[in-house]
Each structure stands twice: as structure tokens, then as C-alpha cells.
């Protein structure tokens, strides 16, 4: 009873609270990093050096008037933000955060649920996220959101193909679909898969940028052309939901990249003797460090690269990333057969 019901509930609460807190501070970090790149300070007034800025902003968003356009499809307009946020949150259910722990005599597994189709679960949950974006744009009954949502869904679907193909190479290396199994297989093989599969790693990250609508692939919300993108008509709390979902999706991509390509909660260099002291740092700290490393790269990329044009984006996806992913898959298969 305790092991099957209470422990998962505790873990779900911890993970959701941690993710939402991390998202709030991601927004602050984003503004700070952008500011540093542009030789500014960023938010400084609210709290110590601006630490409470996003808390204040979130409160403001929740207190603002929630406007539904008169001609909107009210029901779908309300459901759409929820359909974006929920898939991104439940993806964390299968991501291994740490090795199995024993606290107060209770056994805590490293993740909420170790299903043996973990990777497929992540892909399928990710494919549900596109609904909220399409419906949000459609239900606003306005042309800019509709254009934004069409762009966004076309982009999501195109880049999903390349990303999924890179995941297949990881499965070929590890021989399992369970995410905990993939981490353990990286421990057993002595190599993180990011170093064995640099091409897959690159394609995954590029596709991840596109799937989360981040720069340089942030066409769905190109402010200059679309007045904001698929969420133009949203305000107040529902807009906050879209905002939260975007950052949660970035965290999902980073956490999955960490798990698949950077060894999850494993310490670096476990076989180098004089670095053995790194093993005293708990696994979840390593996991967080690596995930935030990826998130930092997201921000860094945004500050560095200009936005692609729409036809360039599609050409990159279909004519470069997908063939490259297929080639990588074939080469991996050949190496597996021959060696």
C-alpha cells in the first residue's frame, strides 16, 4: 500500500513542484542571460538582484482580466492551454532522476514509473502537445493565431521525424526502451551515448530547439510578422499556461537529452580513480546540473543566432536533418552488424 500508492504520490508532488519552480526561475535566467549577452543587467528591482521578478510577473498574469474573444469557440479556447501544459508535465513521469534511494525505511525508485516502453511514452506524449497549439490558434477565430498555429504544427510534425529517428539509434545501442535501462546501459558500456552518437546528439538537440519553438526556429511566434503567434488572443492566466508549457517543454527536451546522451544521473568519469570523490555527490544533483547545462545552451543559442526564414527552416528539416538521421541510423546498424 505504502510502496505502491504513497511513495509515487510523494514523488509526483515533488516533481511537479520542482518543475514549476524551475520554470519560473528559467524565465528569470533567460532574461538575465539575454541581458548579459547584450551587456545589460536585466531585471534588478524586485527582490535581491531581481530574484523575485518572475514571481511578481506570474502573480500579475494570474490577476489580470481573462479575455475571451467574442467570436471564439469558447470551449476549445479554454481547453487548448490545458492540452499544451498537461502533456509536457506528464512526460516527467518516466524520466529517471536518480538511482533508487532508501529514505526513512521507504524505497524510493529513481523515477515515478519505470515502464519498459519509456522512450515510446515520451514520443507519444510529445505528439499530443501539438493539439493545444493547433486548437489554440483555430479557436481564437483570428487570422494571425491561425497562421501561427499552422506554422507551428507543420514545424513540429516535420522535426519530430528526424528526432524520432535519432532516438532509434539510441535504442539500438542500449537494447532497451526503458529510460532507467538506457542510463544503466551507459554505465555498463562505459560511454555516454552522446560521445558514441555525436550526429544523433546534434540532430536531437537541433530538433528539440525546433519542437519547442525556440530561436533560431521560433517562427510560430515571430512577433514582427504574426503579432505574437498562436497565442495572440490569449491573456491572463491562459496565456501564462502557454508560457509555462513552452518552458516545461524545454525542460523535457533537456532532461531527455541528459538521459539519452549525457548519462542521466551518472557521475562523470566513474572509472578514473582520483575523480572517485565525485561519486559522493548524489545522482539527482548531476542530473540537475546536466539538465540546466542544456537549458543554458537553449538560451545561449537564442542570443546568438538570427531567426531562419520559413522556407529555410523546412529545407533544413526535410533535406538535411532527416536524410542525415537516416544515414546515421544505417551506419549505426552496419557498425552493430560488423563489429
Amino acid at each position, binding site marked *: 500500500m505504502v510502496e505502491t500508492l504513497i511513495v509515487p504520490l510523494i514523488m509526483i508532488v515533488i516533481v511537479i513542484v520542482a518543475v514549476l519552480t524551475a520554470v519560473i526561475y528559467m524565465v528569470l535566467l533567460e532574461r538575465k542571460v539575454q541581458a548579459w549577452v547584450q551587456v545589460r543587467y536585466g531585471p534588478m528591482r524586485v527582490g535581491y538582484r531581481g530574484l523575485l521578478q518572475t514571481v511578481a510577473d506570474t502573480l500579475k498574469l494570474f490577476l489580470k482580466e481573462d479575455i475571451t474573444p467574442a467570436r471564439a*469557440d469558447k*470551449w*476549445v479556447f479554454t*481547453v487548448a492551454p490545458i492540452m499544451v501544459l498537461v502533456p509536457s508535465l506528464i512526460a516527467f513521469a518516466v524520466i529517471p532522476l536518480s538511482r533508487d534511494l532508501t529514505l526513512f525505511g521507504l524505497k524510493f525508485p529513481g523515477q515515478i514509473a519505470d*515502464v*519498459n*516502453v519509456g522512450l*515510446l*511514452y515520451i*514520443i*507519444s*506524449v510529445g*505528439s*499530443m502537445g*501539438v*493539439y493545444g497549439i*493547433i*486548437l489554440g490558434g*483555430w479557436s481564437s477565430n483570428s487570422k494571425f493565431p491561425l497562421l501561427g498555429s499552422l506554422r507551428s*504544427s507543420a514545424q513540429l*510534425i516535420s522535426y519530430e521525424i528526424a528526432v524520432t529517428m535519432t532516438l532509434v539509434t539510441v535504442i539500438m545501442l542500449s537494447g532497451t*526502451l526503458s529510460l532507467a535501462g538506457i542510463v544503466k546501459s551507459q554505465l555498463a558500456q562505459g560511454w555516454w551515448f552522446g560521445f558514441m552518437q555525436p550526429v544523433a546528439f546534434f540532430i536531437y538537440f537541433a530538433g528539440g530547439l525546433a519542437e519547442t519553438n525556440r530561436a533560431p526556429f521560433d517562427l510560430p511566434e515571430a512577433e514582427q510578422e504574426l503579432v505574437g503567434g498562436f497565442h495572440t488572443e490569449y491573456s491572463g492566466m491562459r496565456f501564462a499556461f502557454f508560457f509555462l508549457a513552452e518552458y516545461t517543454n524545454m525542460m523535457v527536451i533537456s532532461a531527455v537529452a541528459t538521459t539519452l546522451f549525457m548519462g542521466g544521473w551518472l557521475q562523470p568519469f566513474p572509472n578514473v580513480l582520483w575523480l572517485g570523490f565525485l561519486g559522493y555527490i548524489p545522482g539527482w544533483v548531476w542530473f540537475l546540473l546536466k539538465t540546466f547545462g542544456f537549458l543554458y545552451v537553449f538560451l545561449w543559442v537564442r542570443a546568438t543566432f538570427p531567426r531562419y526564414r520559413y522556407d529555410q527552416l523546412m529545407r533544413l528539416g526535410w533535406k538535411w536533418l532527416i536524410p542525415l538521421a537516416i544515414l546515421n541510423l544505417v551506419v549505426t546498424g552496419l557498425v552493430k552488424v560488423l563489429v
Partner: protein
Amino acid sequence: MAEAVAFYIVAALILGFGVLVITAKSAVHSILFLVADFLCVAALYVMLEAQFLAVIQVMVYAGGILVLYLFVVMLVNLKRPPEAHRDPHRLGRLGAVLAAAIFVELAAIFAVGWTKPAEVQGTLSPNNVEQIGRALYTEYLIPFELASVLLLVAMIGAIILAKREL
């Protein structure tokens, strides 16, 4: 006991969403209810310990095919007025005939006694991805390849139909 309760809840949800699919006024609402319906079917698969099938159900049907439906419904204007000279009850009568046919079939199945559960062949290990893969690539290789050739033909056909000049 708990499993039976869960089953009846999920089954009720499936039927309820199914009714909502055909009674919803807007086609987009219908598709949304269909998504919910498919997710509940996936829950049924999980209860049968067919996790792989459940995930594929979500990925292919809920996440793939229905997105396509949604695009079609959104981009095609469905608000055309019905053609005036048609008999408005024609479709209703057709539906009644089809429904009657299904009930006759169901009655026939109960009469013959095919409602016994199928024999489970072999043991189902929790890692059923491997088992499905092995079965697909050994015993059912030819149907599998035929299906993939069919999909390829459909894909090429779609490209040729959509492009005016190649």
C-alpha cells in the same frame, strides 16, 4: 475487484465519449472527443498489460491520424448548406439499417457462443516489445513487408496527386 472497477469506469468513459463524438455539433469538437476516446482505449490496453500497444495507440491514432483529421476539418469549409433536393431522412434510414445489422451480428455471435476469451498462447512477459518485434520479423514477415509496401505506395500516390508537375 479494483481492476473490475477501473475497467467499468474506463469502459463507461469510452462509450460516453463515443456518444459525444457523434452528437457534437461542431466537427472539431467531435475530433476532440475522439481523441479522449482513443486515450481511454489506450488505458484499456495498459490494463491488459499490453503497454506497447497502448503507447502505439496514443502515438499513431491519438497523436498522428487525428491531427490529420483536425487539419482537414479546420481547413475545409464545412458550413456549406445541404443540397435542397436530397431526402433529409435518407442517411437516417441507412443508419438504422446498419445499426440493425450490427445487432443481428451481435446476437448471432452470442448464439454461437464465441464470447469465450481466446486462449493465450505462451506466457506474456512484461517486456512485450521484444516479443512483438520477434513475431513481426519472423512469423509475420510477409504481411509486415506487404503493409510497408502498401504504405509506401500510398505515400508516393499522395505526392503525385498533390503536385501538379513533378
